[in-house]
């Protein structure tokens, strides 16, 4: 990540770097006050997180009948990143999205933030396991459904252990489970259909993933 004081001649170098075409410049701009070395992977993760954030903002505009019942559209991005770039990149995108989203909506370190974090962490843990399912039989839909259930499980755990330590919240489990089932399936289908559609397209993402290994 790079934070710059000025922007003029280094712009093209910056763009080249973002496309992953040039090796990382040692210091393209001597005027720059703070310069962090970044890899193309960093940029890619940042871009994916930005898309996920866009979906989060979009989703927040949708009214919800019950707090916590949300489509979780940003998880579509997590699923795609998971399938194409592996678990590590997906974890980055998912956790960065939670952090940046909380800053965006002003609930950083508020209960809502910890609910999101716990849900995301549980989803990622389950996704790490579901990755090992045979690819021939299980696709993104399975990952999505399992992750959605893990998400509500993580959230309910926080709610029960911290916010409302009363067994009465169990009444809400069927509502959340139904939402997880429906939205998990829908998100998985969206991710699967997106990936099937872009499979044959010239995929610069695939090239980029090769570049990671260099």
């Amino acid at each position, binding site marked *: 990540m790079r934070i710059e004081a000025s922007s003029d001649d280094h712009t093209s170098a910056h763009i080249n770097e973002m496309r992953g075409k040039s090796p990382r410049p040692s210091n393209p701009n001597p005027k720059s006050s703070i310069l962090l070395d970044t890899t193309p992977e960093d940029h890619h993760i940042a871009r994916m997180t930005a898309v996920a954030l866009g979906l989060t903002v979009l989703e927040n505009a949708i009214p919800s009948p019950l707090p916590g019942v949300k489509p979780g559209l940003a998880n579509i991005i997590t699923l795609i990143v998971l399938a194409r770039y592996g678990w590590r990149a997906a974890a980055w995108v998912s956790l960065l999205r939670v952090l940046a989203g909380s800053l965006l909506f002003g609930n950083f370190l508020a209960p809502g933030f910890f609910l999101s974090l716990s849900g995301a962490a549980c989803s990622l843990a389950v996704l790490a396991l579901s990755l090992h*399912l*045979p690819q*021939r*039989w*299980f*696709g*993104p*839909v*399975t990952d999505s*459904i*399992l992750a959605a*259930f893990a998400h509500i499980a993580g959230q309910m755990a926080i709610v029960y252990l911290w916010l409302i330590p*009363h*067994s*009465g919240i*169990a*009444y809400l*489990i*069927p509502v959340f*489970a*139904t939402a*997880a*089932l429906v939205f*998990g*399936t829908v998100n*998985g*289908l969206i991710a*699967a*259909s997106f990936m*099937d559609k872009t499979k044959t397209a010239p995929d610069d993402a695939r090239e980029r993933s090769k570049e990671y290994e260099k």
Partner: protein
Amino acid sequence: MSFHSHIKPGDYLTLSGGIAFTVWITFAVWSGGIADTALIRSGGKVFREVPLSRDQQIEVPGPLGTSIITIEKRKARISSDPSPRQYCVRQGWLQQAGEIAICLPNEVSVELTGGAKKYDSLNY
């Protein structure tokens, strides 16, 4: 647009598993426990604990007068109470574990208990 092409065989398995789990947990949580005991409190203390298996009427003294609790066919209700607004009487029959009728002015309450779970509508 057909979604079938995007679903792998195992995904149907996961989906059916998810549906089965959701249905099971809905029944497990929402059907409520079967009540077998009525816990009668007066002035914050347990007055009596009676089984629902025997039909009977119980008179409970309170600061305003006597409340009458009726137990019939494994259900319980407060059939008479001196409280001015009669909320607990109008609540009617209690049947599931966790249900509770409270007459605040007369400090009398009936709560049904039983099974392992104890949910109530007050803390909901």
